[in-house]
């Protein structure tokens, strides 16, 4: 339900600070870990979770997320499995869950059926990195019918007119890609990142999250100045992969997320 997403934004606005949003690929590092990861993220105060749907050809992703995607596929992660996993997780967690995945598996599942099953499982929204608003009429209709947020992306190359159009097309929030490039941890952001984010901020009223390349509390503070939320994805991969057990994984994740959440909420 997109209502859960809107509540999360309202809460963040009331409490101040920025949202911290982890991205994790469903079924990575193993299928049994996903529910534990969702619970841990909620416990740590994460405001929303992006759950990655693995795809064979993730062309907007760098090596880390490509690797998680391949690993999840080889462990038999499919949309039906993800839906059952989210449905089970919903007994314990109330944090909004937004699926992030490439268009083809969704299209192939049948867009109407996909949105119905996602909403029934307790998914709150969708981000589809290879689906610009221009091609989204069918998914928009289906997502609207099942009250799922549909979030489009803005890039540094996006013109002002398109930024406004992307914002109009997006429900509940927009996703700002921090750099021209694929996902993956970066050491530093260029100075023009700030002017780009400032430009986007000025152009749209809806909440904006920023992602790609974020790995440290300093990054969160830097990009969080211009956004309502910050996404951390690739940087979590080694943290999750290192742990042998799900309990160890939760411990490592807590340790890693804590300063990031503090940085975001403290802004």
């Amino acid at each position: 339900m997109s209502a859960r997403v809107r509540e999360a934004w309202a809460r963040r606005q009331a409490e101040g600070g920025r949202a911290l949003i982890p991205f994790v690929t469903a079924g990575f590092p193993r299928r049994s870990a996903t529910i534990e990861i969702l619970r841990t993220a909620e416990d740590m105060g994460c405001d929303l979770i992006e759950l990655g749907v693995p795809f064979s050809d993730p062309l907007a992703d760098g090596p880390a997320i490509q690797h998680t995607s391949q690993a999840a596929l080889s462990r038999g992660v499919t949309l039906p499995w993800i839906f059952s996993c989210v449905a089970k997780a919903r007994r314990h967690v109330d944090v909004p869950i937004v699926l992030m995945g490439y268009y083809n598996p969704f299209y192939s599942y049948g867009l109407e059926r996909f949105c119905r099953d996602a909403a029934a499982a307790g998914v709150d929204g969708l981000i589809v990195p290879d689906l610009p608003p221009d091609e989204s009429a069918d998914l928009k209709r289906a997502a609207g019918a099942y009250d799922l947020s549909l979030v489009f992306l803005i890039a540094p190359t996006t013109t002002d007119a398109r930024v406004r159009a992307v914002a109009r097309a997006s429900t509940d929030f927009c996703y700002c890609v921090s750099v021209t490039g694929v996902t993956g941890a970066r050491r530093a952001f260029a100075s023009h990142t700030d002017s780009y984010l400032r430009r986007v901020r000025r152009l749209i009223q809806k909440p904006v999250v920023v992602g790609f390349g974020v790995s440290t509390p300093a990054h969160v503070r830097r990009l969080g100045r211009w956004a309502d939320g910050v996404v951390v994805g690739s940087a979590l991969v080694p943290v999750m992969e290192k742990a042998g057990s799900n309990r160890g994984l939760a411990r490592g994740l807590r340790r890693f997320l804590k300063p990031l959440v503090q940085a975001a909420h403290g802004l």
Partner: protein
Amino acid sequence: MQSLRVNRRGRYGDYGGRYVPETLIPALDELEAAFRSLRRDRGFRRELQGVLHDYAGRPTPISHAPRFSERAGVDVWLKREDLLHTGAHKLNNTLGQVLLAMRMGKRRIIAETGAGQHGLATATVAARFGLECVIYMGAEDIRRQALNVYKRQRLGAQVRPGHSGTRTLKDATNEALRDWVTHVESTFYIIGSVVGPHPYPEIVRVFQSVIGREARQQFRKAVGRHPGSVVACVGGGSNAIGIFDAFIGDTRIDLIGVEAAGRGLNSGAHAATLVRGRPCVLHGSYSYLLQTPEGQVAEAHSVSAGLDYPGVGPAHSALRDTRRVTYAAVTDREALKAFHSLTETEGIIPALETSHALAYLLKHRTRVNSPVLVCLSGRGDKDIDIIREVA
């Protein structure tokens, strides 16, 4: 469909479109605008015609194949794209796109390649015009096409292996798209087939349509009539679109596209996208695709690296649905047999890709109307190691 034209939404019928990350949309808009104005620009056209003639060696001839005709049981004529500089039709497109790149002020060129012919053609034009060049190639294809890799390096191009996925053309295309997303402002991506997001399929169609334009006239002059059937191999489908384009409007002429059936259509190891796939989205466009029931892109297989691709150009998808073109598939073995057959009877060594088109004639002589025009899309020197391996 009586003509092969893209509509205003960047589609051929339902197929095509732009399914790419937002970062690339402005670059595609810019490319579309540049292409639209330059294709009518006299200076640009003259320059392209000039390099096609003086540098690439156009027009390529058509050759009668009397001894092969005897074996096939139909009268066969060959459009000799194997005689084009670098040995395949790919140069028609790379010359066009590199001139576009220069007019747009881009000094860095990237490309994907399967068989290596498009990589070679891209490295060649980058050397000719003094541009930086990076070629992505699947690690498996690098192994299969070592000679082309070496040639490209001598031409000054950097060859980067794609290690992800099946390590073939599909994965090289993913890597090239990732590079483009990262360096979009300085870089021109020369796509090698009639695939990818709009306007690429249309750009490649326009630059390859010189094949059919020449062939139609040459055939008329040499034979005194039009061909009964026109046959071409289809991977992504650029040589086929190139030759079909001139004949689409004349429905008395059969058009036949031949895909790779690999180890057999029921073996699960083939690349017969139009024969066995379903419409879906890969590499920026909506088109037929080989995929799993879950919508993951399936592994393709063909002995020919250039056909080893699970997708196909959106124009072909539209032509399949309207049945203007008949699509069929022949196996690795049948293609290899045709390879030897043409080599022995005509002294022309065809590419393994092209051998699929020839194999169709040997297999289905009753399904074609004589005289037949075949697009001899490339020469087979690059495939000699593979032939020796399987022989």
